[in-house]
């Protein structure tokens, strides 16, 4: 049976944190350290919004926010996130209280089958936070100027989210509506 020492170090005088916070709720990490964050969310917490596509970090369907930063939940172990705050699509909005970005996806039909949508939505939120922090992309002209949300920029920054139905143009429209005119 795999065993684990999951106590992260505590700063002196502090009790070690032993839980993973998901959408504001605290959870004990899984027993088996092999459990990916993706499997933990879907199979142990029943948060099935986050999807398993390739399970190899290629398709982006499993994108979640960890401490506000987007990552692929399939290429990380749940146990590595003790002490972190994870936000999934369920944490962004509810069916009766949609996040404005979710509403924009609905308005513009930013999907067909919908399988990639939760990852797309978390990825947009993460990408916008990166733009605010001055993170450049492959299509950024001047590295030192403030980053902007042009369609070209958003397209490149969203290249880690594959849509097998090819709803890209509607996804772009949804994003454009949400971000407004390029900042």
């Amino acid at each position, binding site marked *: 049976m795999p065993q684990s020492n999951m106590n992260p170090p505590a700063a002196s005088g502090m009790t070690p944190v032993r839980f993973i916070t998901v959408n504001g709720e605290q959870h004990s990490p899984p027993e088996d350290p092999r459990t990916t964050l993706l499997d933990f969310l879907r199979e142990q917490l029943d948060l099935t919004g986050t999807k398993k596509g390739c399970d190899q970090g290629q398709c982006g369907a499993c994108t979640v926010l960890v401490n506000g*930063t*987007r990552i*692929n939940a399939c290429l990380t172990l749940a*146990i590595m996130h003790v002490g972190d705050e994870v936000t999934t699509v369920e944490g962004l909005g509810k069916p009766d209280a949609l996040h404005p970005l979710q509403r924009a996806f609905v308005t513009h039909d930013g999907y067909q089958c919908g399988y990639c949508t939760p990852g797309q939505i978390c990825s947009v939120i993460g990408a916008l936070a990166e733009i605010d922090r001055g993170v450049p992309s*492959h299509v950024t*002209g001047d590295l*030192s100027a403030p980053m902007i949300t042009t369609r070209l920029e958003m397209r490149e920054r969203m290249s880690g989210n594959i849509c097998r139905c090819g709803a890209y143009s509607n996804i772009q429209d949804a994003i454009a509506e949400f971000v407004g005119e390029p900042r």
Partner: protein
Amino acid sequence: MRAFTYQRVAATAEATAALARIPGAKLLAGGTNLLDLMKLEIEAPTHLIDIRDLDLARIEDTAAGGLRIGALVSNTDLASDARIKRHYPVISRAIVSGATGQLRNKASTAGNLLQRNRCPYFYDTDQPCNKRLPGSGCSAIDGASRGLAVIGTSSACIATYPGDLAVALRLLDAEIETVDAAGRTRTLPIADFHRLPGDTPQIETALQPSELITAVILPPPLGGRHFYLKVRDRASYAFALVSVAAVLHPDRTGRIAFGGVAPKPWRVEQAEAALQDSAEAVVSIAFDGATPTEQNAFKVPLAARALASVIARARESSDAV
């Protein structure tokens, strides 16, 4: 995935001690390469040492006028650092040409340098591969080799070093700083870090078993115009067929390194004098002795054309890189 035990360490010495003590132990940084390979059981560590809490996530100025990049600085944070953008833009450009936003957020500086190759047979556990199973043979030499190396290869392995950041670091002559379980530190030039396959393609770097990378040291800025041109099968999000990292000065001097063509970032200093002449001249020296396969012979002329395009951009008046 094979079973393993997991430990999250608070100090570098704790990490190297565990590496030295536990057979089959491995360090875990972002996990984006290691966990991918563990799912396929190409890597099967018995114990993972999670180093995320180590104080190695800072970028500091050095007394020499360069920068010291902690091993745990994420690819995103490195590409976004104001000093890097301003004085070492080839690093930012190389990073953002690779992987995706999600992966770059998780990927660490050291983990990126240590990422393993992308040869299709290395991933296909039903096929012989000397890197994965030493002595089993190389399926690529007579197989699908389009993406693989054209120079620096051996009869045992023709895999390419796939990363982008290391090509920029080789261009800048960065150094890798390490510490081992005995507390000994050493600094080695990146030129000596990745090795050619020879008879032992499974040994990819000069890193010793109980060694941990603490930082990457950049020498003072070189000035000049910086470029990273990555030629690939898609406009975004693919490994390089050929990449060119360059620092070019108005007097036509400069430095050139290539990615996607060799088992390590490929820089031949003697070729750089030929920048006065032409891209073809640089490439003919840098690729002297190349042994491409029929499928990847296109990479040599492609390298010349990619370099020619970089040189042409450098001569345009605009200063967009």
